[in-house]
C-alpha cells in the first residue's frame, strides 16, 4: 500500500479524498495555489505545498508544478480528484514516467474515453446502444446539413474532445444549423484546442442516468444507477440513486452494459458510464474516466467507500466487494451547493463566507470545502459543498433534504440553496418526473423571489424598523447605542437560541 499520497486538487474533493487516505494509514500531501493560502483543504492534509499562482493554468492544471510537488514531498501516488488534471492522459503518463502511481484509469483507456467519437464507436462495436448520429468529425457545414436531415431535427452538435457540457449546441431547424456549427466549433477550439464536432439526434425530455463501475484486473462491480437529470446548461445540480424511472430488469441491463463497455476499452479503477434514458430505452452518452462529484450518493446506499476502492485498485490490491455481495439500502439525494445567485440567473458569487452552519442529524452528510471565514475565490469551480441525504425511501429522503436545506446557513456569498428549496417543493420533482431540461422548461429559477430563512429574517427586521418609524427620516438616521461586550452578547444568544426550533416568542421573553 502507498505511504504518501499527493492529492492534486482543492476544495471539498481534496478533503474527502484525504479523509479516506488517513483512515487507510496513508500520509496526505496537499497542494494549493496563492489564492488558496487560507483554504480549508490545507488543514485536512498532513503537509501542503504551494504550486503556483491563482489561475488554474499556473497551479492546479500545471503538470510540471504538480509533479515537482510530488517529488519534493516524496509521494508514491497521486489522486487527481475530479476536474483539473483528472482526465488528462498526458498527466497520467507523466506520473508513470516519474515513478508515481496515478489513482485512476490507464492513460490509454482515459484517452479513448476523452475522444467522444472513438468512445462512441467502441461502445457501438460492443453492442452498446448509441444515439443515432455520426462516428466521424463533420467536415463542413454542408456535411453537417446532409447528416442532420438524414437523422432528422432536432440535432445536437458535440465537440469530439469536449466535456462538462461545453461545446454542445442544440439545433431545432435547418436555418439555425450554419450559425450553430460555426459557434460550436469556435467554443470547442477555445476550450479544448480542437474544433472537431460530430452530431447526434437530440432526444427531447430524456433522463440522464449513469452507472458507477469499479474494475480491477480480475473483477468488476457495477453499482445501482444514479439519476442526474436535474441540470442547468448541462451542469448537474441534483443527483439521486436509485432512479425513480428504472425498474429491476432495466437496472440489470444498464449495469451489465456499463461493465462490459468499460472492460472493452481496457478500463481499470473507478469510472462511470453515462446513458440517456428515453421512452424506456437507453443509449450511451459518454464515459467519465474519474471519480465523480456525485459519488457520495452511491456510497450512502451501498456502504462502499469508493475512494478506498480506487486507492486499493491503484495499489494492486483486490476489490473488497463483488457484484453478488453488493447490497443497497434506501434512497440517497445530493444537492450541489454552489456560490451562485439563482435569483440573478446564477451569477457567480465569490467572496468571504461570514457565517456558516451545516445541517446535521441522521442520514445527513455534508462534503464541504469551506467553513466560516473561508474565502471563495473567483478562479475556480463554484462548488462549495455537497449536501447528501439518505433515508429508507425517496419520499423520506426528500423530507430530510428539505429540512437540511433550510438548516444550511451560508452567509457572505450567495448560494443556490433557494433554487434547491424551490425544486424540492415542486410536485413534478416529488413525483420523480425528471428530464434534463426541466430546470429551464419549468422556469424554476426565474420564479424565485425568496432567498431563504436568513434573508427573510433581515426582511422582517427591515419591515419592523420601518413600521415602528425608526427609519422615517431616511437613510442616515442613526440607530446607535453603546455596544454590548462580545462575551455578554454570546452568553445571551446562547440562552435565547435553544437549537433553532420555533417556540412562541411570548414564552421566550
Amino acid at each position, binding site marked *: 500500500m502507498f505511504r504518501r499520497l499527493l492529492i492534486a486538487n482543492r476544495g471539498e474533493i481534496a478533503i474527502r479524498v484525504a479523509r479516506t487516505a488517513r483512515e487507510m494509514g496513508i500520509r496526505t500531501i496537499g497542494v494549493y495555489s496563492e489564492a488558496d493560502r487560507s483554504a480549508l483543504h490545507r488543514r485536512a492534509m498532513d503537509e501542503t505545498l504551494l504550486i503556483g499562482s491563482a489561475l488554474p493554468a499556473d497551479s492546479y492544471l500545471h503538470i510540471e508544478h504538480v509533479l515537482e510537488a510530488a517529488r519534493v514531498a516524496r509521494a508514491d501516488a497521486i489522486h487527481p480528484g475530479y476536474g483539473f488534471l483528472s482526465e488528462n492522459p498526458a498527466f497520467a503518463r507523466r506520473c508513470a514516467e516519474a515513478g508515481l502511481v496515478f489513482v485512476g484509469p490507464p492513460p490509454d483507456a482515459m484517452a479513448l474515453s476523452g475522444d467522444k467519437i472513438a468512445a462512441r464507436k467502441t461502445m457501438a462495436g460492443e453492442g452498446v446502444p448509441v444515439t443515432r448520429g455520426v462516428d466521424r468529425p463533420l467536415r463542413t457545414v454542408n456535411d453537417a446539413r446532409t447528416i442532420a436531415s438524414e437523422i432528422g431535427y432536432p440535432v445536437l452538435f458535440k465537440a469530439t474532445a469536449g466535456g462538462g457540457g461545453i461545446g454542445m449546441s442544440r439545433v431545432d431547424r435547418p436555418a439555425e444549423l450554419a450559425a450553430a456549427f460555426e459557434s460550436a466549433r469556435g467554443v470547442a477550439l477555445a476550450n479544448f484546442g480542437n474544433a472537431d464536432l460530430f452530431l447526434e439526434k437530440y432526444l427531447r425530455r430524456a433522463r440522464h442516468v449513469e452507472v458507477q463501475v469499479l474494475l480491477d484486473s480480475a473483477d468488476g462491480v457495477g453499482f445501482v444507477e444514479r439519476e442526474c437529470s436535474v441540470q442547468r446548461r448541462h451542469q448537474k445540480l441534483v443527483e439521486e440513486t436509485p432512479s425513480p424511472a428504472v425498474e429491476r430488469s432495466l437496472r440489470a441491463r444498464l449495469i451489465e452494459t456499463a461493465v462490459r463497455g468499460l472492460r472493452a476499452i481496457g478500463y481499470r479503477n473507478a469510472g462511470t458510464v453515462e446513458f440517456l434514458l428515453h421512452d424506456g430505452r437507453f443509449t450511451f452518452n459518454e464515459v467519465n474516466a474519474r471519480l465523480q462529484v456525485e459519488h457520495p450518493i452511491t456510497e450512502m446506499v451501498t456502504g462502499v467507500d469508493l475512494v478506498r476502492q480506487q486507492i486499493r485498485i491503484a495499489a494492486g490490491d483486490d476489490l473488497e466487494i463483488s457484484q453478488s455481495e453488493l447490497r443497497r439500502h434506501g434512497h440517497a439525494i445530493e444537492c450541489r451547493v454552489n456560490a451562485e445567485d439563482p435569483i440573478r440567473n446564477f451569477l457567480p458569487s*465569490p467572496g468571504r463566507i461570514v457565517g456558516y452552519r451545516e445541517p446535521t442529524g441522521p442520514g445527513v452528510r455534508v462534503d464541504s470545502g469551506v467553513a466560516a471565514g473561508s474565502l471563495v475565490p*473567483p478562479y475556480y469551480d463554484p462548488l462549495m459543498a455537497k449536501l447528501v441525504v439518505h433515508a429508507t425511501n425517496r419520499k423520506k429522503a426528500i423530507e430530510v433534504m428539505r429540512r437540511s436545506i433550510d438548516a444550511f446557513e451560508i452567509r457572505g456569498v450567495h448560494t443556490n440553496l433557494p433554487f434547491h428549496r424551490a425544486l424540492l417543493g415542486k410536485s413534478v420533482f416529488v413525483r420523480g418526473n425528471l428530464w434534463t431540461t426541466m430546470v429551464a422548461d419549468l422556469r424554476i429559477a426565474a420564479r424565485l*423571489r425568496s432567498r431563504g430563512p436568513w*434573508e427573510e429574517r433581515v426582511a422582517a427586521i427591515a*419591515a419592523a424598523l420601518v413600521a415602528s418609524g425608526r427609519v422615517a427620516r431616511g*437613510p*442616515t438616521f*442613526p440607530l446607535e*447605542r453603546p455596544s454590548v461586550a462580545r462575551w455578554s452578547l454570546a452568553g445571551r444568544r446562547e440562552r435565547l437560541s435553544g437549537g433553532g426550533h420555533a417556540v412562541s*416568542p411570548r414564552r421566550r421573553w
Partner: protein
Amino acid sequence: MRFRLDVDGEQRDIEVQPIAGGFVIRIECAEYRARTRLAMDYVDVRIGAKTQRLHLQGNEAFLHDGIHRVRLVEVSEEGADVIESRPSGPGAIVDVRSSMPGRVVRVAITPGAHVRRGETLVVLEAMKMQNEIPAPGDGVVRQVAVSEGETVTADRVVASIELRGPSAS
C-alpha cells in the same frame, strides 16, 4: 425608501415600498411581502405563512432565534450611486459597473469608440463562467477603467459612456 442595513456584521442594501397593511421589501433582487402589526413594545411581521415577533431595543432586534445586532449604515455618496438609479438621457455620462467579482478576460472598447446599446464592453470571468457587460445605451466611450487580466470587485466602474441615444435605464 432605500437604506443599508447591517445585521450581525453583514450589510445589505434594502428597498422598502409601502403597500396596504405592510411593505414590499427588496434585498438584492429578492422580494418579500411583509404584513406588519405594531404593538406597544413589539412588531409582528408576517412574511408568507410565517409570523415573527420582533422586539426592537436600541440597536438590537430580538427574534425567537436569538438577538441580532442591527445597525443602519450611513450611505456614502459613492455607495448611494450604487443603489440610486443612474442618470439617463442624451448627454449623460453613465458609469458602467461590474456585475460580479471576477477577472477581466476581454476589453472590447477603446476611449472614443462609438457603442450601441447592448454591445459588449467588457467580458468578466468568475468560476468558469463568463459574464458580458453590455452598453446601457447608444453612445461614446469616455473612459475605460479596467484592463485585461485584472481582477475586479463587484460594482467597480469598468467604463464610462456618454449617452447619445435611448438608455436602457
